């Protein structure tokens, strides 16, 4: 509901709001320019009488004096028969420059408030302000949901650039945009006389003294009116004894006799009128220059948010696949309900739908919000694929589901399987799926299989769950879903260094050129996005749709893409990679792996790797420009054969990026594994861990298990276990 409320006003009003916001941002500069160029403000306590005396001294034909909310004072007078006007220095009463509004500013003002049209334009702009208000309020709720609650409102963001940019700018600009849109609506209501109107000018008195010629200094009301309160003072028409002074202040307006100075009539401004004046002054920046500039800056965010919002919407639309052979709810033997936020879960659902259909099933796929158990007449199983929005909230496509399930008299008879999609680095991992599974259990809904999860769109997690699902149905079910694989980019090899030939274990460090990326690609999340060492490069070998993943040994700040590859016996992908010559290309894409990297802070880092697993660790050291204490334990075969990064490690040690390097060669004069090296350093490792060190391990599964066991031995005297450290994020593994 909130999302719909955000999407449609945003899409419809995007262009209009861009015009209003840009013109508003430009206009916001004028009060600031005025303030810089303006003569000094009137001295404190200067009376209107004194100001009028000074101006009349310079311009005896003055008709009217006005004071703008910015404090600028303008006098209107005649030079001979020609009407003239000047901005006045209140200290002297002399004009300092012409009073005309620059033509550009006038044009921008007309564009900003009426699109250069008449009342129709004003109404359209007021509609734009209304849309902006709705967008700001719904956007606030959506941001709070996305980051997981109001208290985390300014928490760091994840996801594609367009979405991140949209929210980053929104968080900064929303206060200004709320203020601008509310005040704009108020001013529009005032212009169209929709607000309760004040009394206006009082009726002109029927009787005046008939005398003329009293100087302003002799009029008590003018002496008692400080210039700070003045709005305008109009002098009586020369030679018209029936006329009077007309005085307008921030409080009201009235007439003063030109013969004896008495107050002939007065009416106070209504509260609404005074509020309108204040709102006008603040919206235009005339009252508070700094506020005006802040509003202008906020407005500058609008075009960017309009563009990124459109990109996010298009991406979500593209992300929802078309389903072939989607059966009706009443015919299906499998009901597949999807709670997707950005659309990626729909991708998984489509793969599952296709696989089940291929296996002879009749599948009905629908958003979870359409849950209608009474219609599932032939269903044998109900499957729910559920993403989580922010801090455990239901995604848009699942609104109301929990309430409806809770309200059921009894749970559906057919068994249920729940699969949660999420990101383990969020506090409420798969919170919504968990809530579904818990409520289903409470309602006594029988489970087809225990609830399972897919972390960060892992195809492996999904395939595993698919096999388990197939087992319950008695059919083999292979789910091959690659959410981002089709968006591969071509990477060109620029250099390779070969190792391990002597050991019959050909290994290479492959370095690819960093492909250039246009802004449009960045916004859409296309091309190779921002990456760091430890992220994964998915390589699509020729002749296979299944990617292989390699840990990156470089970040994009290094200016190249680097991986370490060892030839696997009969390996399709590693074989192709090791045959690659400079100038040739591969198809690859990025998969983030944000947990596998040194944590924030200055605590020491213990890096443990074997074979090509040293790649990302070398990347961490290379990126360690701050000189944090990094201790590397590297296990490989022979110093002369496959000592990857030997030259760089020496150089990085000299530069202070690498604190220490401990090697373990399994085929040398003194064969040992990296576990042995750790054991030999037990006391030092214990001291490092005690001082808060983080441990990062990269290598094969067996090696990682061996390292974990060894560290358990080493840390036992200190009462610590690798499991404890893992729970605290201080022991992370990247295992293949």
């Amino acid at each position, binding site marked *: 509901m909130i999302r719909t409320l955000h999407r449609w006003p945003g899409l419809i009003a995007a262009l209009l709001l861009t015009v209003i916001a840009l013109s508003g941002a430009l206009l916001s500069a004028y009060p600031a320019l005025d303030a810089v160029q303006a003569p000094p403000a009137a001295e404190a306590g200067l009376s209107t009488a004194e100001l009028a005396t000074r101006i009349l001294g310079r311009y005896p034909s003055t*008709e*009217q004096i006005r004071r703008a909310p910015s404090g600028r004072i303008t006098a*209107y007078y005649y030079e001979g*028969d020609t*009407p003239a*006007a000047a901005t006045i220095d209140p200290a002297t009463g002399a004009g300092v420059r012409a009073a*005309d*509004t620059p*033509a550009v500013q*006038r044009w921008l003002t*007309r564009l900003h408030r009426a699109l250069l049209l*008449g*009342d129709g334009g004003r109404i359209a702009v007021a509609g734009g302000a209304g849309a902006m208000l709705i967008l700001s309020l719904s956007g606030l709720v959506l941001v709070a949901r996305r980051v997981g609650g109001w208290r985390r409102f300014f928490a760091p963001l994840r996801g594609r650039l367009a979405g991140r940019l949209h929210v980053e700018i929104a968080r900064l600009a929303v206060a200004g945009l709320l203020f601008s849109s509310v005040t704009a609506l108020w001013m529009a209501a*005032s*212009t169209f*006389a929709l607000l309760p*109107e004040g009394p*206006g*000018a009082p*009726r*002109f008195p029927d009787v005046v003294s008939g005398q003329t010629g009293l100087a302003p200094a002799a009029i008590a009301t003018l002496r008692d009116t400080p210039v700070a309160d003045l709005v305008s003072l*109009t002098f009586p*028409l020369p030679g018209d004894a029936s006329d009077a002074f*007309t005085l307008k202040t921030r409080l009201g307006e009235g007439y003063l006799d030109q013969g004896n100075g008495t107050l002939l009539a007065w009416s106070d401004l209504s509260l609404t009128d005074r509020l309108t004046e204040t709102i006008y002054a603040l919206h235009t920046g005339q009252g508070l220059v700094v506020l005006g500039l802040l509003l202008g800056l906020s407005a500058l965010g609008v075009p960017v948010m309009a563009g990124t919002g459109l990109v996010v919407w298009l991406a979500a639309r593209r992300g929802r696949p078309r389903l072939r052979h989607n059966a009706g709810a009443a015919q299906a033997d499998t009901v597949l309900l999807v709670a997707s936020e950005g659309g990626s879960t729909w991708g998984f659902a489509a793969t599952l739908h296709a696989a089940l259909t291929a296996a002879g099933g009749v599948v009905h796929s629908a958003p979870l919000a359409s849950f209608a158990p009474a219609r599932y007449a032939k269903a044998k199983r109900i499957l729910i694929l559920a993403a989580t929005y922010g801090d455990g909230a239901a995604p848009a496509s699942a609104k109301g589901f929990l309430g409806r399930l809770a309200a059921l008299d009894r749970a559906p008879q057919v068994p249920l399987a729940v699969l949660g999609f999420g990101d383990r680095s969020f506090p409420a991992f798969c919170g919504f799926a968990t809530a579904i599974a818990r409520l289903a259990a409470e309602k006594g809904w029988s489970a087809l299989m225990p609830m399972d999860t897919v972390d960060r769109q892992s195809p492996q997690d999904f395939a595993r769950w698919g096999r388990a699902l197939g087992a319950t149905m008695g059919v083999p079910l292979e789910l091959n879903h690659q959410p981002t694989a089709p968006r591969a980019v071509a990477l060109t090899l620029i250099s390779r260094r070969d190792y391990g030939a002597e050991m019959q274990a050909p290994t290479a460090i492959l370095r690819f050129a960093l492909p250039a990326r246009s802004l449009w690609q960045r916004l859409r999340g296309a091309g190779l996005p921002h990456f760091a060492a430890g992220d994964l490069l998915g390589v699509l070998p020729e002749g296979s749709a299944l990617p292989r993943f390699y840990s990156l040994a470089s970040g994009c700040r290094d200016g190249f893409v680097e991986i370490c590859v060892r030839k696997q016996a009969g390996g399709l992908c590693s074989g192709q990679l090791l045959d690659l010559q400079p100038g040739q290309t591969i198809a690859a894409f990025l998969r983030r792996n944000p947990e596998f990297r040194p944590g924030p802070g200055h605590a020491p880092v213990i890096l443990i790797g074997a074979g090509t697993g040293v790649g990302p660790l070398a990347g961490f050291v290379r990126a360690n420009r701050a000189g944090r204490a990094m201790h590397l334990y590297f296990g490989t075969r022979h110093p002369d054969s496959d000592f990857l990064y030997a030259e760089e490690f020496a150089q990085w040690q000299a530069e202070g990026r690498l604190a220490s390097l401990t090697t373990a060669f399994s085929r040398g004069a003194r064969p040992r594994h990296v576990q042995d090296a750790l054991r030999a350093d037990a006391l030092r490792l214990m001291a490092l861990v005690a001082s808060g060190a983080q441990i990062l391990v990269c290598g094969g599964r067996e090696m990682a298990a061996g390292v974990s066991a060894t560290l358990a031995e080493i840390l036992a005297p200190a009462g610590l276990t690798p499991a404890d450290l893992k729970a605290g994020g201080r022991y992370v593994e990247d295992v293949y």
Partner: protein
Amino acid sequence: MNPIPAALALTTALTLPGLALARPVTLTANLKDYGGEGAYLAVYVTDAQGAYAGSLWMAGGKSKYYEHLSDWYRATGGDMAQIAGITGASVGSGRQLTITLDLADTLMDAGYVLHIDAAVEDMRDSPSEITVPLTTAGAGQAVPGRRYIADFSYSM
């Protein structure tokens, strides 16, 4: 100079005692290129004693700005009934206002004076920008304005 089509006032704008005959009169005001928003113009008549006699036309639709037409406002107290049915759009910089209305014969050559008050947003107010006696002889003669109106004439 684009003429702005103005509604034809079908009935006499002024209801005066002893009204017997009326004749169509065309009022034409050419505005200067003063470079601002559309001008609000109040066209009205005072009698030989200078007392307000009635309004002929109000160019500009938002009543909250009428007090800037200060002589008209002073004379009428901002009474909206005075301009009911005889209001039109404000007149843009450099444009022309043309109104044709039936004016009572008794207004001619009897000391009545036609006034035009003008006002423009964020610019000076110009009350009685035009003051011209209504005479048969004066018909067709252009009168210059002070601030916003280049010239004004009425013709029968």
